[in-house]
């Protein structure tokens, strides 16, 4: 956790300087600051117009810095605290995300305990504990008592958190709504003391306000436990804490989560993969993803003395040879002293860099979930009959490597429809498909329609894959589609990290992933239709046998029972086809045995294997049936190096650990 301090120190000094913030390599923060500037200007002029005209001097008295915490306290919707219901979810999300990040960085299988306690009608306490590396005493106040303080902003590495706002914003929300400080207990190892802090944020100064600081005894060796009290509301169903946890479990099969809700019911999501996501590497910025202002800042801050060394040392994919070319094209040399490089030179260099053909950034900074782990997650989380998943090869947008993964679940209990289309149920409208979205393994629950993933789903012509869909809407089918974007920098549309921005490159990858899985789904649906066609046929034969027996008996002497049996036998023989599998050309292929021999990363559950109908509660601790429904995914032969980890993933880690 060395870099945490370094990053923190750096940010600490930057925070006060508005211009510096604008140079952060991240658009959303700078845009917020722009908003802030606009608000400030508006406020001043409004006030003046009511009284006398302002002079520069009177205005100067009004002009002062606005602390970032003050700004976000007013504009808390930007961080996802728009309403009581969402506030609770956002707080849980920030705490859980941090816990998972910390555990993975520390190289331990995350074991997270989350509890929501209801204190009054609209007052709740959230407790989140992890078994991560813990936080050193000196950093605790900054992390929880200061906005824009974190270890993840200044590096290009795949993690859930990236902005350094998350948990402190949750604490600030609690403080604003209840006046209660945040409580943090952290311990960095056995034999070390556990520090207990109570912190408030001084919003004026964006500084922590230490209310209590003591050492306590805890029954656990290592990790962090935070407690925030807030005004909130607890709901069930879509966009609820429960859904968030459930989806987190799907995308993080290496994690154990124990969740205790206000009803005191404990739900456990057990780890079913025995490998941690591959450790990702930090990468240097790729020249194609860098903006001019950032380039200028990098020139100012680098320790390199000469241009050539700067270019090849600070960027990925810029070799000394390329650096030489770039210098030459910009009318400079590798030996040019950086001190002598002026803004116009930097602009020239910038333009040359954009035009130069460079290799795409390396992608070992990405850790996709992996098709098989996705299947594992879907299988235990969603009761369907058909599952498939695929991991796209890494791609790049604006110089940032990213990777798209798609998973699909279809049929089974997803449609409350009886599979045989029996009786009244037939008249029921098929359900609308559901999209579950993840960014760096974090579920996205809000702003679905603004999300690139959702737009791609709606844009896809599902009719081609056997699902019915009216123009520009979700397909009408018992269908769940999962989309995961893994990237060193996920381009969110806002600070509350709810929707992925719509970059062409990202859209294209999502669509490729969707069509890859869609084709498998289409094949499955076509085969299924063919099967039901034959079953229907058999039904018709049996239906008329009785009539035929009666008619024959009326015309000639025969034994009705014998005739009925003989005809039934013939009917069965004639429709043996109903029990066979057909390929796309209607040729008979081998009998079905669970998995589909022709499709990679696909699982088909026979009717007997599907969980019995009834409770639709998504895998709420019901691990019996989960164990039974083993993954029989076929191993893909051609797998990217990255998904190797997931390839060996087997459902394991079934030991139950109940914590009080």
């Amino acid at each position: 956790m060395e870099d945490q301090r370094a990053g923190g120190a750096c940010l600490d000094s930057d925070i006060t300087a508005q211009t510096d913030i604008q140079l952060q390599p991240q658009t959303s923060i700078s845009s917020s600051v722009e908003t802030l500037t606009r608000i400030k200007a508006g406020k001043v002029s409004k006030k003046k117009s009511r009284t006398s005209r302002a002079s520069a001097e009177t205005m100067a008295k009004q002009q002062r810095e606005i602390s970032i915490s003050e700004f976000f306290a007013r504009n808390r919707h930007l961080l996802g605290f728009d309403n009581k219901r969402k506030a609770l979810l956002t707080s849980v999300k920030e705490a859980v995300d941090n816990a998972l990040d910390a555990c993975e960085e520390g190289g331990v299988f995350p074991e997270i305990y989350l509890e929501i306690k209801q204190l009054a009608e609209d007052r709740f306490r959230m407790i989140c504990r992890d078994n991560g590396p813990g936080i050193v005493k000196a950093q605790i106040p900054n992390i929880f008592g200061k906005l824009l303080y974190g270890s993840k902003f200044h590096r290009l590495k795949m993690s859930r958190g990236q902005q350094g706002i998350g948990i402190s914003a949750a604490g600030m929300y609690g403080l604003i709504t209840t006046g209660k400080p945040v409580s943090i207990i952290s311990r960095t190892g056995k034999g070390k003391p556990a520090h207990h802090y109570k912190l408030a944020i001084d919003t004026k100064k964006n500084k922590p306000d230490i209310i209590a600081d003591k050492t306590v005894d805890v029954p656990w060796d290592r990790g962090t436990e935070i407690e925030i009290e807030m005004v909130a509301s607890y709901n069930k169903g879509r966009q609820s804490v429960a859904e968030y946890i459930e989806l987190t479990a799907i995308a993080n099969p290496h994690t154990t989560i124990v969740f205790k809700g206000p009803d005191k019911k404990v739900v456990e999501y057990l780890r079913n993969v025995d490998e941690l996501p591959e450790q990702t590497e930090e990468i240097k910025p790729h020249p194609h993803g860098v903006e001019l202002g950032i380039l200028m800042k990098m020139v100012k801050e680098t320790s390199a003395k000469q241009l050539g060394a700067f270019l090849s040392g600070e960027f990925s994919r810029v070799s000394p040879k390329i650096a030489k070319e770039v210098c030459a094209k910009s009318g400079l040399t590798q030996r040019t002293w950086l001190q002598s490089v002026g803004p116009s030179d930097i602009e020239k260099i910038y333009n040359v860099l954009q035009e130069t053909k460079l290799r795409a950034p390396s992608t070992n900074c990405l850790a996709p979930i992996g098709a098989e782990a996705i299947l594992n997650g879907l299988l235990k989380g969603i009761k369907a009959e058909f599952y498939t998943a695929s991991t796209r090869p890494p791609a790049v947008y604006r110089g940032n490597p990213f990777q798209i993964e798609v998973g699909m679940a279809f049929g089974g209990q997803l449609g409350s429809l009886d599979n045989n289309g029996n009786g009244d149920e037939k008249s029921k409208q098929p359900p609308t498909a559901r999209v579950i979205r993840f960014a760096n393994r974090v579920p996205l629950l809000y702003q679905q329609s603004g999300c690139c993933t959702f737009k791609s789903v709606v844009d896809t012509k599902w009719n081609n894959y056997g699902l019915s869909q009216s123009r520009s809407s979700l397909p009408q089918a018992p269908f769940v589609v999962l989309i995961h974007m893994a990237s060193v920098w996920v381009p969110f549309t806002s600070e509350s990290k709810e929707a992925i921005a719509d970059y062409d490159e990202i859209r294209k990858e999502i669509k490729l992933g969707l069509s890859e899985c869609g084709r498998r789904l289409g094949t499955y649906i076509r085969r299924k239709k063919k099967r039901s066609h034959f079953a229907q046929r058999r039904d018709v034969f049996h239906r008329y046998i009785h009539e035929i027996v009666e008619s024959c008996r009326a015309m000639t002497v025969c034994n009705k029972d014998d005739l009925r049996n003989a005809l039934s036998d013939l009917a069965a023989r004639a429709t043996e086809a109903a029990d066979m599998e057909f390929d796309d050309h209607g040729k008979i292929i081998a009998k079905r045995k669970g998995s589909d021999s022709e499709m990679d990363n696909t699982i088909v559950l026979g009717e007997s294997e599907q969980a019995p109908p009834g409770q639709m509660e998504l895998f709420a601790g019901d691990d019996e049936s989960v164990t039974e429904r083993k993954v029989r995914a076929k191993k893909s032969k051609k797998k990217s190096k990255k998904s190797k980890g997931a390839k060996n993933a087997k459902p394991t880690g079934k030991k139950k650990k109940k914590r009080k």
Partner: protein
Amino acid sequence: MAKKKTKKSTAKKKSASKSPKTVTKKRSKRGSNGVKTTAKLEGLAESVVENAFGRREPAIDIPIRALSNVSFNPKTRYIEMGDRCQQRALFNYGQAKRFMQTLLVASKCKELVDADKTASIRQIYYLAKHTIKGTKEKTFDSQDESDPVIEDLEVALEALREELHVFAGSKGALIGELTFVDSGDTIDATKLGSGGYAIPSIVEPNVIQFKKCKAKYVLHVEKDTVWRRFVEDRFWEKHRCILTHGGGQPSRGVRRMLYRLHDELKLPVVCLLDNDPWGYYIYSVIKQGSINLAFESSRMAVPNARFIGVSSFDYDRFDLTDDVKIELDGNDIKRAKQILNYPWFAGKKAWEKEIKRMVKNGFKMEVEALCSKNLTFVTEEYTPQRLKQPKSWLD
């Protein structure tokens, strides 16, 4: 099932052959089969039972009743049925229901024959209609489903409708210079008032025997209303003829009656029908038989019949006014072209001219339109005049 859907019906004796046996035997010449109807119906059921116990899928061969399986025989000058059969199999998704219906109707016919009762085709429909056990499905949804099944049985079993004890409602009527016996009652067709004699569905010699005939020919008109005009004006008396009508497309009884009048009493048959494709087709059915019932042509078709009107040229010939015109629609024109293409119209120059003229006229005319001149124009001027011009009749 290695069998093709359609196949040549071969003379398969009920022997130890392994392939599924079908019911029909070689099509024999009409009327020369001595096998009793009961035996035929029993044979149908037996073949199903036999096949079932022999683990073969039951099927019935049914001669195809469609344009594709009829041919015009220039020697006999009527339409004959080809020998292509369609196999109706129980274990075929598209045929299962029809198979069941065929057996069901057959069993109802067997009941009728055994009890020596006859039933109309509508009564058959109600006899066979019920809900299938364990479902909400009906054996028949409408008479449109059961009527063709009866025809299927007729061709499959080579049994005439009357042999199956089924009849259709009587539609046509007769009046004129003829005395005959119907079911033992002597009928003088000159003494039938204004209603005439309703031609029954079954007019076989065992029911109707001709006694005395003073008529010189038979005038067949298209429908009841025109026929009444002729009756009221006592046309049959003045012109010494027999007047018949078929209520549109003549039923089998009417056609069989025309055939017998022509065949046994050697009376020429002339037709007065509407000037439209429908009228042409009625004429065609009387003269050379219908596609659907091609297997009965030999006992119904009257190849020597003639068409005296109304012709497309009559508008000019008789100086008619615009009031008689009914505009042709797209269907009329399509149908006219279809008729022109029937093999039995092919090469008939006069007909080609007639139909082309109608299309060129752009209108059709009903016989009744002739009343626009005056009420009795058709009986007193038009028809007598047409009868005097055999050269302008159509063949």
